[in-house]
């Protein structure tokens, strides 16, 4: 991957059976980076995880209109900055209102966004005119 410039734009059905496919793309990118000084296996796991969590989020928040909806994911790497965008057309939510999990209380849910925030440098969720975009960035060097 010359110059570490990559853009992957993919759409998959909004079904959980495609999580492993999307996660594997993240793993492959981590392993194929031309320059990366950190541990590639760890990065591969982390990219697999943030893609999995973000896609689950999109599936949960997808609008009910069409049963055969697609989730669009764009992964781009430019000048050592990795940006992942995951689109959904649901009602959206306020990402800043999602609290850090209370580690003293054993909840079944509520760790997904926490994991993404822990592993990426920045996370935002905003709406453009048609859809919501979960955008995550991480500097890879």
């Amino acid at each position: 991957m010359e110059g570490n410039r990559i853009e992957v734009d993919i759409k998959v059905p909004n079904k959980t059976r495609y999580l492993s496919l999307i996660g594997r793309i993240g793993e492959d990118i981590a392993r194929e980076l031309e320059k990366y000084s950190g541990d590639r296996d760890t990065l591969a796991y982390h990219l697999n995880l943030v893609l999995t969590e973000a896609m689950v989020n999109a599936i949960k928040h997808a609008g009910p209109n069409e049963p055969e909806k697609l989730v669009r994911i764009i992964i781009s790497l430019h000048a050592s900055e990795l940006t992942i965008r995951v689109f959904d057309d649901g009602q959206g939510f306020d990402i800043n209102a999602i609290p850090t999990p209370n580690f003293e209380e054993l909840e079944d849910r509520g760790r997904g966004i926490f994991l993404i925030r822990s592993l990426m440098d920045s996370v935002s969720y905003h709406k453009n005119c048609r859809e919501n975009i979960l955008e995550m960035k991480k500097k890879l060097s």
Partner: protein
Amino acid sequence: MNLVNETRNDVVILYVREERLDAHNSAELKSAVQKLFEDGTKNVLVDLKDVRFIDSSGLGALVSGFKNAISHQGNLKLSSLQSQVKSMFELTRLHRVFEIFPSSVEAMENFQ
């Protein structure tokens, strides 16, 4: 989901024979554990040797199982976590909640 169930003494060992424990299959593990406790099993060991990837839903299914154990006065322990999987327990502080053993053999000794 490929779950192999083995009973030794009074412990049910659930071997999760999947590479991923995620939002696609974790509900099955959650109900399998729930059913064990509802049917009167007191001691459950979930062995994750084959699992190389876990997400928040997979962690959630195990937390649900742990809470099920408590409400049935039972135990749920874990064994054979791969290093990346274990680091997810650490990141979410769940390593403080679960008893985690390097292998199912060591976990079995602890149940005695």
